[in-house]
């Protein structure tokens, strides 16, 4: 009897598992085909000389890519942009969120205004930027009235300024909303206690709010980092495939794809992923250290 019961249970379990597998299978197949398999194909491509002879070359491709002049320029520019734009994006969006968390006039209208840039298509943004920052654009025209020589905004060292401005304009709104939501989720009783204990606004902000925002900080930082790579679209539309000042890793990979150099492309992607893993790993460690007591 007991044995029969056990067998019945086993059969029911097997049926349940098969049923679950059947439901999961289509999605699993899609994920395997479009994410997992290509991942391994990329690794494979990075270890061979070309898809035609497919000779194993070990880490030769990695050495070539790391020594490639264009890759170095791209990596340097990408790092520079990320180090500048990401912290600015996080800090400014936090400040705006803190400001909008208060009871100020036109609060909801301001929130909407900050979110509006997200709705504008990239091509429209690029068009406006070109009109303003082109060598013969509106901004130079205004400057010339003040006796300032024309600046080549998009092809000189000022290009970073333009693109950071564009990045912040586009992304501050979304990050602000995330911080705002996190601020509003801080337990009110803790804040009340702090007020009652005569804690200053600065102390409340630094000792309580920031600690509660640790996980949001990490999330916004990672999101901003990802968005900092997406700025390639705007740069590509503004300056083409080979800009002199704004040449990013995405340019390198896009161009190597167009020239059918899949080895270089795959290798560059892996190198970039490796550094991304390190950065995100560091962020996780930091978040874990500062946010642990909040979770507890």
């Amino acid at each position, binding site marked *: 009897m007991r044995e029969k019961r056990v067998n019945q249970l086993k059969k029911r379990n097997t049926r349940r598992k098969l049923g679950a597998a059947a439901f999961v299978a289509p999605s699993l197949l899609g994920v395997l085909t479009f994410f997992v398999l290509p991942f391994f194909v990329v690794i494979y491509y990075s270890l061979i000389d070309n898809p035609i002879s*497919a000779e194993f070359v070990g880490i030769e491709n990695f050495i070539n890519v790391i020594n490639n002049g264009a890759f170095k320029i791209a990596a340097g520019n990408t790092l520079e942009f990320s180090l500048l734009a990401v912290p600015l994006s996080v800090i400014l969006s936090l400040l705006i969120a803190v400001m909008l968390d208060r009871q100020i006039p036109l609060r909801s209208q301001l929130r909407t205004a900050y979110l509006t840039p997200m709705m504008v298509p990239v091509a429209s943004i690029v068009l406006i930027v070109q009109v303003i920052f082109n060598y013969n654009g509106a901004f130079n025209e205004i400057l010339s009235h003040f006796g300032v020589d024309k600046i080549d905004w998009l092809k000189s060292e000022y290009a970073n300024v333009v693109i950071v401005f564009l990045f912040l304009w586009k992304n501050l709104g979304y990050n602000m909303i995330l911080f705002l939501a996190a601020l509003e989720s801080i337990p009110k009783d803790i804040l009340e206690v702090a007020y009652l204990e005569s804690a200053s606004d600065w102390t409340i902000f630094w000792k309580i709010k920031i600690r509660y925002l640790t996980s949001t900080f990490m999330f916004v930082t990672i999101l901003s980092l990802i968005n900092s790579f997406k700025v390639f679209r705007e740069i590509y539309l503004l300056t083409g495939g*080979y800009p002199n000042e704004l040449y990013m890793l995405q340019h390198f990979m896009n161009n190597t794809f167009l020239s059918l150099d899949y080895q270089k492309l795959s290798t560059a992607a892996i190198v970039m992923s490796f550094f991304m893993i390190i950065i995100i790993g560091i962020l996780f460690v930091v978040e874990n250290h500062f946010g642990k007591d909040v979770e507890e």
Partner: protein
Amino acid sequence: MNTKSFLVKAASVAAIILLGASLSACGKKAEPLKEQYVYDTTYERIPTDEEDMYTSATEVSGDYIYSIVYEYKNESVKYFIKKHNNVDKSDKITELHDDRLKNNAYIDKFHVYDDETVGAIVNIYNEEMMSSDYWYSIYSADGKLLENNKLEFETGGDRYFYIAYTYFAEDKSLIIQSDDKLYKVDKSGKMIKSLQVDTWIRSTEVSPSGKMYVCTFLDSGEAICPVKDDFSGLEDKLDISLNNGKICAITDTSIIVSSDISLKSYNLATKETETIWEWTDLDIDDNYIDSISINDDGTYTVVSEVWSEDFSGIEIARVEKKEAEPGKEKSLIVFGCTYIDQPTKKAIKDFNRSSSEYRITIKCYEDEIDDYETILERMGTDITQGNIDVVDLSHGLNYQTLVNSKALACLDDYYAKDINSNDYFTNIFDAYKVDGKNYCVVPKANIITLGMSKDVTGGKGSVTLEELMNIRKSNPDKEFMSYASKEMMFYICCIYSISDYVDFDKGTCSFDSEKFCKILEFANTFPKDEDIEIDYETYDEWALMKSGDIIMTMLYLSDTSSLRLYSQLMKGGLDITGYPVSSGSGHLIDANSQYGIAAKSNVRDGAWEFLKTLLLPENQNSYYYSGFPVLKSAFDDKMKEEMKEEGVSTYGNGFSQVELKQLTKEQADLIRNLYENATNVTQYDEKMFEIINEETAAYFAGQKSVQDVSKIIQDRVSIYLAESR
């Protein structure tokens, strides 16, 4: 984690890796493609032009071939209808009794009706009006004129109006097609209706049931459109791609279309297209097809005109398409090209005819894809995936990129085995080597160089940039060169001496050098493109050369005619200086055609067998191809032929004429010297020049300084070159 769970996970990862590796081109190579069909063809030739008799039109009807022939004797013409019985090979010739046909008249459109009467469109030249009048005439079976009606068209006084096609219905009404209009005409010659089409009509056909189709040009490209039954317009185009195509035959169920590459059948019911054959499979010249008909037994009858030294007349080919015998199929070689030109098509045809082991099939991307960039991308992908065996590198593909990405096979072994380097101008082969290895075949090449007036150069035979600039300074009023603009002069001085600024092997450049800045400043002394106003009614370039106002000209030497022409035009004679380069020859090699073999090809040996034929004397001596041969003996034969040219040829530019003298020995030696000593090739890297042109535009517009522009170009091009290392 327990052992079982670990093993399951490890097995999954291993399976994924193996699957990924197999999908990414690991594993054994695919077998070569085999031909599926063969074409049994029988030919019959019927000479049409006997002594004093010439054929003006032909029609095939069942077992009979009807021709309109005319005899020109004693300044008078007689017309006949010739009926050739293809079964017993007998001919019956009947004179058309019509006094109008004796002079200034022509018949090239006719039809023999079921009742044996002959309907014809008679074209009579009206000297007073300087245009043609068209008459619809019907003759009896014994040649008597039965009816004669003048066709009146609304031509709007266009004296170039002509009839391109006529459909003779059995009720003796007509459908007439001109350039861009269709006319419905009744049997008395009266126009009932007309239909104006937006663009040019290439061809028209009517099905047995009376449905009309036109091959015309829409905004989206060539198309076949049915004509509405009420003749009010065109219906939506059929879904069939055309590449210089025309309708050859039409039944109630299908349309047979001939393009540059193939003969296709479009099924009107299923809307599917089937390729019947590629023209390179048959020994038929598809440029002169008269008609194609589908026989009841499924074979095809192709009637074409043949004009050659030993025969002129009609050729009737009966083609039977059969499945290839298993075990005896030829291996297929895929020839990939953006478009196919006639010389290459001929070479492929000749190879297919002569090879017992291989057959070339053409994959012409222009046939299926309209956008040029998409064509190049698709070709690039197909080359790396091994879907093309022979690659036509002549039209847009970046040869250097393909070699760097190892997409092309190295041909050194083939060259060593089959090519005797002493017989060829090996400098041409060497110019296209990459890292000292051959990756392509260049059967013929041209020379791009610069020619100047000897009065100015003193016959030095070369020119530096400084000398050019000094010549410009000391001749400020002269036009210098035809249509010389900033952009043009920059192009000449920079693009054709690009090796001075770019080391493609090392991947470095020096656009911030003093020389490059000087070129920009020199080019800036000329007017902008848009500021050049030329009155084409009065601008006589040749007269300006003779007077010494134009002192420089670009020379594209694919034959000797330019050299001979400008030698007579340039004041003081022509000095071929070459482009101003710092080192090497300023004369550039430009491949007239260039072919490679895909590294992933399974039929490399066969592909080489084909490419080798392009280097053999038969093709090297052929005048079918333009450019100078790379085979020394063929080159010398060509020069000898041009030196002994009888008489003179006359060239005109609309203002004056020049009698082109035959090639002199000095000129022949000069060309040979240029050809065998040229080492630089035209290296037009589109991406690089896009960057350069983009930046120089700002300098020429006066917006930026030469230093700023050269720095930006240097930065951008450096990145571009570094990327490809």
